[in-house]
């Protein structure tokens, strides 16, 4: 902007010292330069507006010079008043106010000199002719600078817009997702209630039956089957409840290391002799965040059981924790079967499972995701087919307490 100002000012001074005759010669050249500017501007992002601006400016430059060759008024004055006015009406160009100010400054600085043209006596004609070439170059410099700045501001604006569009898209994605989860919550609460009622009679009924058929060995397996069915159905229904929880107490101090250790104990029987657990805790001390201990237990347990289930025979699960500035990072990596790329985006979706019917509900990870999100955590998954999967969880600004 400063360069443009200096260029414009210098150009004006040179322009001013021209004799009227030189102006007449220069007028045509200036006009063709403005036309060139117009053509160049054709390739700018907002070419239509710039093109019209340049054409108008060119016409004004030409006619003002022809009109004012009477010599009473130097053309520079009029020329620097009109472009800002033209620029004002070209709203697509964000920086038009700067150009207006710029031009007005030029005009004002030229003002005392332009009336009466009293420098005519101070400079010899030869000097003016010599300078005419320079003045033309300055005109060109100004045009190039303007064009460059216009283009730059436009492309910046373009980038900003693209960023806004991207943000909007991701926000709407998130909105859709949270809306989906919210409606799932409302639905699952209703379904859970409706299903639990009949489960209540089934369970109560089978308890009564088992009491009455206490001595019948034949009836036992059937009763056990019904009982198992009820228990399984009820645990699925209850896990749906996690989607409908509106509020839980989230101000407990939870030690991530203890939570991991507790969860490992819970799945110990599945890990034994089969899976090595490699713990890399950043600190022997407790690493506490503020949240809901029960929920975090469940999230970690779900992720660990998933890791365990991903390993078909023998393998390792690596658990790492570390703190980076305000963030707590937890990563759980397994050497299991991995997730295929087409499934990778779906693993957080409720009911998505690759397990056979009755083996998994497809709720485990989506519940873990929801809990972690509620604890302002971000999950990043990387997976390589037949090599394993790695979950990187980053709890942002978790109110870390190092004791």
């Amino acid at each position: 902007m400063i360069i443009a100002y200096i260029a414009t000012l210098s150009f004006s001074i040179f322009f001013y010292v021209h004799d009227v005759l030189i102006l007449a010669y220069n007028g045509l050249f200036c006009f063709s330069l403005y036309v060139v500017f117009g053509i160049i501007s054709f390739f700018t992002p907002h070419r239509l507006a710039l093109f019209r601006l340049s054409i108008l400016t060119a016409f004004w430059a030409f006619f003002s010079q022809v009109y004012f060759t009477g010599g009473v008024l130097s053309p520079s004055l009029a020329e620097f008043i009109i472009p800002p006015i033209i620029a004002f009406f070209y709203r697509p160009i964000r920086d038009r106010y700067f150009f207006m100010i710029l031009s007005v400054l030029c005009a004002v600085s030229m003002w005392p000199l332009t009336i009466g043209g009293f420098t005519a006596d101070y400079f010899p004609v030869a000097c003016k002719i010599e300078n005419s070439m320079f003045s033309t170059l300055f005109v060109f410099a100004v045009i190039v600078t303007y064009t460059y700045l216009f283009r730059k501001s436009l492309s910046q604006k373009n980038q900003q817009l693209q960023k806004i569009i991207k943000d909007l898209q991701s926000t709407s994605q998130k909105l859709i997702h949270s809306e989906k989860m919210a409606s799932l919550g409302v639905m699952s609460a209703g379904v859970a209630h409706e299903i639990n009622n009949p489960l209540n009679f089934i369970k109560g009924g089978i308890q009564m039956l088992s009491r009455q058929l206490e001595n019948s060995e034949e009836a036992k397996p059937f009763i056990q089957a019904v009982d198992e069915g009820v228990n399984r159905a009820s645990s699925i229904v209850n896990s749906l409840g996690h989607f409908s929880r509106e509020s839980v107490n989230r101000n407990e101090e939870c030690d991530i290391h203890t939570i991991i250790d507790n969860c490992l104990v819970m799945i110990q029987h599945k890990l034994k002799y089969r899976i090595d657990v490699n713990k890399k805790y950043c600190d022997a001390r407790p690493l506490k965040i503020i949240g809901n201990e029960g929920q975090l237990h469940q999230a970690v347990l779900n992720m660990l059981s998933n890791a365990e289930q991903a390993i078909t025979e023998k393998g390792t699960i690596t658990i790492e924790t570390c703190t980076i500035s305000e963030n707590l990072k937890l990563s759980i990596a397994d050497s299991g079967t991995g997730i295929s790329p087409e499934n990778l985006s779906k693993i957080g979706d409720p009911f998505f499972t690759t397990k056979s019917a009755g083996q998994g509900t497809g709720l485990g990870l989506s519940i873990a995701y929801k809990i972690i999100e509620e604890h302002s955590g971000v999950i990043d998954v990387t997976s390589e087919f037949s090599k394993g999967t790695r979950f990187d969880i980053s709890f942002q600004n978790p109110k870390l307490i190092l004791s």
Partner: protein
Amino acid sequence: MRPAKDSVLFVDDEEINLFIFEKSFEKDFKVITASSGREGLDKLKSHSNEIKVVISDMRMPEMDGLMFIEEARSLFDEISYFILTGFSFNKELESALENKLIDQIFKKPFDYESIKKAVGLNSQSSF
């Protein structure tokens, strides 16, 4: 006059639930059933000297479990009030539990042992 046996009032709008509950616990204590909050209040008034524990469903037409218990508690504060519900989590229930309006929440499908234990403790402690 002392009642022969402590009773439990069970309120649920579903007949099958009432039947199952009554049959499940008939050996352990006397079960009085009511199929609505309104009926529950009438039964409470007529059996006020023997009912020690009230167990109510949450979602019922007209008067839900909490409304029923609120009204019942204003009449008979010394009774223990439980909710047996199919909801796994509910804000209202949570705050009712915090405000000591209800003593405990049981989830459907009901667990025979835990209800028996809770009722046993509460009916003894009220003597």
